[in-house]
C-alpha cells in the first residue's frame, strides 16, 4: 500500500496575523510555523494504515526551503520519506497541479490531505487533484476504514453524514475524527534527520488567481455587562437593540 499525504506549513494558531508591503503580504516575521492541524490528522491516519509493514507513507509539500522543519516533523511523526516541490505556492490550483504532476506515474493507492489549511481556508486541493488525476476524491471525511481494495468513508453533509464505498486509488480530505494526531517520540525525531527529503523543481502551471490585498476585521465595540439576575433585560436588549431575536 503506497500512501501520499499532502502537507502544508501554516502559522501557529496563537499567531496575531499582520501584513506588510502595503498589506499585500502576510508578515512572517516572528511567526512560528507548524504542520497544518488537519494534515496532522491525515498523516496520523496514513501511518495507522501502514502499521506493521503494510506499506509506505510519503509526504509532499509545495513550498520553499523554509518549510523543511515542518516536513522533518512529519517524518518524525512517522512518514517514510518526503518530497518538496520548490515553488511559491501561490494558489490552490498551482499546488494541485504540482502534486498531480508528481503523482502521475507513481501509483499511489491513497492520497490524503487535511480538510483545509488554516491559513487560506480554501479546502480546494483534494477536489482539484481528483479531477486532475481522474480518480475519486471525497471531501471532509470524519471516518476512514480500509477494507481490501476499498475504503469506507463517512463524510459530512448538510445536517448529517453520508457513508461511501470508494475503490482505490482515491483521494480523501480528512477532518477531525479520522485519527488522533500522533506526537513524535524521541526515536522518531532522531530517525527523521536521516530520512530522505527530496527537493524537486516545479513545473509550469497557469496562474488563475492572485491575492491583491489583506485586511483585518474591525475591532468590536465594547461590552455591556449585566448581572446574573438580568436575563430578561438581556432578552429585551437582544430584541430592541441588537435586533437579533
Amino acid at each position, binding site marked *: 500500500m503506497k500512501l501520499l499525504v499532502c502537507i502544508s506549513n501554516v502559522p501557529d*494558531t496563537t499567531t496575531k496575523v499582520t501584513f506588510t508591503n502595503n498589506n499585500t503580504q502576510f508578515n512572517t516575521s516572528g511567526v512560528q510555523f507548524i504542520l497544518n*492541524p488537519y494534515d496532522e490528522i491525515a498523516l496520523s491516519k496514513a501511518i495507522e494504515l501502514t502499521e506493521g509493514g503494510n506499506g509506505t507513507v510519503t509526504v509532499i509539500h509545495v513550498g520553499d526551503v523554509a518549510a523543511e522543519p515542518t516536513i522533518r516533523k512529519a517524518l518524525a511523526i512517522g512518514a517514510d520519506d518526503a518530497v518538496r516541490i520548490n515553488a511559491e505556492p501561490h494558489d490552490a490550483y498551482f499546488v494541485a497541479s504540482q502534486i498531480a504532476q508528481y503523482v502521475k506515474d507513481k501509483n499511489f493507492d491513497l492520497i490524503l490531505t487535511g480538510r483545509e489549511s488554516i491559513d487560506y481556508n480554501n479546502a480546494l486541493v483534494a477536489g*482539484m487533484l481528483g479531477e486532475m488525476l481522474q480518480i475519486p476524491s471525497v471531501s*471532509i471525511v470524519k471516518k476512514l476504514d480500509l477494507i481490501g481494495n476499498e475504503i469506507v468513508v463517512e463524510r459530512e453533509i448538510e445536517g448529517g453524514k453520508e457513508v461511501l464505498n470508494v475503490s482505490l486509488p482515491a483521494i480523501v480530505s480528512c477532518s477531525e475524527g479520522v485519527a488522533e494526531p500522533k506526537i513524535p517520540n524521541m526515536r522518531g525525531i532522531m530517525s527523521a534527520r536521516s530520512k530522505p527529503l527530496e527537493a524537486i523543481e516545479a513545473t509550469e502551471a497557469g496562474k488563475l488567481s492572485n491575492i491583491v490585498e489583506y485586511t483585518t*476585521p474591525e475591532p468590536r465595540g465594547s461590552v455591556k455587562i449585566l448581572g446574573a439576575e438580568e*436575563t430578561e433585560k438581556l432578552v429585551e436588549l437582544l430584541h430592541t437593540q441588537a435586533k437579533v431575536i
Partner: protein
Amino acid sequence: MAVLVYAEHVEGQFKKSAFEVVSYAKEIARNGNTQLVAICVGEISDEALGKLGAYGADKVLAARYAALNTFSSSAYASAIADAANRENADIIILSNSFSGKGLAPAVSVKLNAGIVAGAIDLPKTEGGKFIVKKLAFSGKAFAWVELLSAKKIISLNPNSYRIVDSPTSTIIESFEANNTPDSKVSVKEVIRSTDKVSLPEAEIVVSGGRGLKGPENWAILEDLAAALGAATACSKPVSDAGWRPHEEHVGQTGIVISPNLYLAIGISGAIQHLAGVSSSKTIVAINKDPDAPIFKVADYGIVGDALEVVPKLTQAIKAFKG
C-alpha cells in the same frame, strides 16, 4: 454571457443557503447586465424550482434523472460544468457548503476557472478587475482575491449574503448532462437529522465550553437552543473530551461561523476560538470570570454561573416568545 448558480436542495427542498447564492448571483448578473441561470441536480418538483424565480433566476435548468438522486460529486460537477459551457456562463456561483466544498474545486479544474472559496461579499469590478473578499486565517483576516481566468468561480459562505426578493418570470428547462455517476464511488448510507439546524447555516448558535463541567450539563444548552431555534456548538476541548461530536467544534481548527447571534457559555475566549466566531454579528458571553477574554469581543455579557443563568435565560426567551 451569463451567470450560472448551482442551487443545492436536500431531498427536493431548498435551504436558506440556496436562496442566498441565488440572491448573490442575481446581483452579479444585474451588475453585468446579463441573465441568471440556475442549475439544480436530482429529483425536485417544478413547484419547488419555481421558487428560485422569487430571487431572480431567469432560467432554471433541471437535471432530474434517477441516477442523480443521490449526491455524486463527480457527476454533479460535470453537470454544473456542462451547464456553464452550454449557457456560455463566465461566472459560476456555488455555496461553500459541505457539498459545495467537494464540487467547486472539481468544476474549477473542468473549466480551467480561477476560484474564490469562502467569499463573503460581492465582487469588486472597478477598472476591469474582478476582486472578491474572502475569509482567511480562519477568520483572523480577509484576503482580497483577484481572479485572472476567463471563467470565474465563487463559492459563497453561508450567512454572508442576505436573501433579496427579486421576482422574475422563470422558465424551467430540463437538462441532460453528459455524465453518469462515478462507478468507483457508491453511497452506502445517508443519515440526516432534518429537525436539527445545520451549524454553518444557523442564524443563532448556542455554544458551550469547558465551563459547563461535563456532558451531563448540556441539556440546559439544548433547551436554550430549542427555545431560540438555534444550532449547538462547542469549544475544542469539549469535543476533544468527547462531550460533544467533533462537527460541533468551532474555531480556527473547527468550523468558522458567522451567525447573527452567538452565545458563548462557559467559554474563555482563546484566540483560536475567537478566530472562528468573531464574524458573528452579535456575541453574548456568559462566564463566571469577569476577566475572561471572551468579554473583550462580546457585545453583551452576563457574569455568573452558567448552570444557574442558562435555565433562567431559557425561561426569559420562552416568555418573550409567548
